[in-house]
């Protein structure tokens, strides 16, 4: 037993501060760029510009919950505590974006559809997705034992992530108020460029969010390990 390694994994690889700010500045740039270069849509007018926040937010929600799925499976398989912490970090970031997607969708729906909300399959399944991960996060705060917490939340995380393809396909499987996914051919090039840039910026920002949250979680766990080891040392000594 070496007291110099309080965590069994040592310190995490830090998410650089410059990368966070860089991603945020890039995000601001792509937002302004997209808004400034897109002409009013023939049907929607300026409301088309909602696309550059709502669509990327939805996309990174799916991506973050995909990370939860992979990390949760890895945790169940390898019992690696780090995978549990990564899943939790991705779930937190994913929930934030899922909530944002819902709010932005309501703000887009009111002026275009005429209603803030309607219980169609896309909106309902997205809300279910959000609630599952809110449940995931509260579950984590209730369970004390790290190993049990990891197993339970991995199970919920996998269940939640299964909803992602359902949310994605909902507009094709069922009749919905929400339109189906746009494809590049259905988008004027000036819209497509702005959208792709914003997808990239949101993705970069999300990677940094998850990484940084994971870094914090690793330190928190390492501090717990250290405190435990210190307590044990006291008892033995």
């Amino acid at each position, binding site marked *: 037993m070496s*007291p*110099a390694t*309080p965590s069994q994994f040592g*310190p995490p690889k*830090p*998410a650089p*501060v410059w990368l*966070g*700010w860089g991603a*945020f500045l890039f*995000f*601001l740039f792509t*937002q302004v760029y997209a*808004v400034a270069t897109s002409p*009013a849509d023939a049907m929607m*007018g*300026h*409301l088309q*510009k*909602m696309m550059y*926040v*709502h669509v990327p*937010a939805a996309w990174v929600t799916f991506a973050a919950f995909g990370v939860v799925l992979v990390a949760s499976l890895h945790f169940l398989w390898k019992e690696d505590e780090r995978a549990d912490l990564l899943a939790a970090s991705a779930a937190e*970031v994913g929930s*934030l974006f899922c909530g*944002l997607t819902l*709010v*932005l969708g309501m*703000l*887009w729906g*009111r*002026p*275009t559809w005429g209603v803030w909300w309607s219980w169609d399959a896309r909106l309902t399944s997205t809300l279910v997705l959000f609630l599952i991960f809110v449940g995931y996060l509260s579950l984590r705060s209730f369970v004390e034992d790290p190993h049990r917490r990891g197993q339970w939340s991995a199970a919920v995380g996998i269940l939640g992530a299964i909803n992602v393809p359902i949310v994605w396909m909902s507009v094709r499987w069922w009749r919905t108020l929400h339109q189906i996914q746009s494809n590049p051919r259905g988008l004027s090039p000036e819209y497509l460029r702005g959208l792709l840039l914003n997808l990239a910026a949101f993705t970069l*920002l999300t990677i940094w*969010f998850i990484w*940084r*949250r994971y*870094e*914090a*979680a*690793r*330190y*928190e766990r*390492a*501090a*717990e390990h*250290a*405190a435990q*080891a*210190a307590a044990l*040392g*006291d008892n033995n*000594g």
Partner: protein
Amino acid sequence: MGSQLENGGISYVVASYVITWVVLGVMLVRLLGAARRAKAEYDQAAKGEFRT
């Protein structure tokens, strides 16, 4: 008929962008602080261990 939205609903667009920028900006700043604090706490705990 139809268009009863002022300015084609631009207030909704502005609200969306404001919300997005604020949420993501706050998240950025919070995470910058969270990781720094967690590291400081860890360093403290590790030091405590050496002392015993």
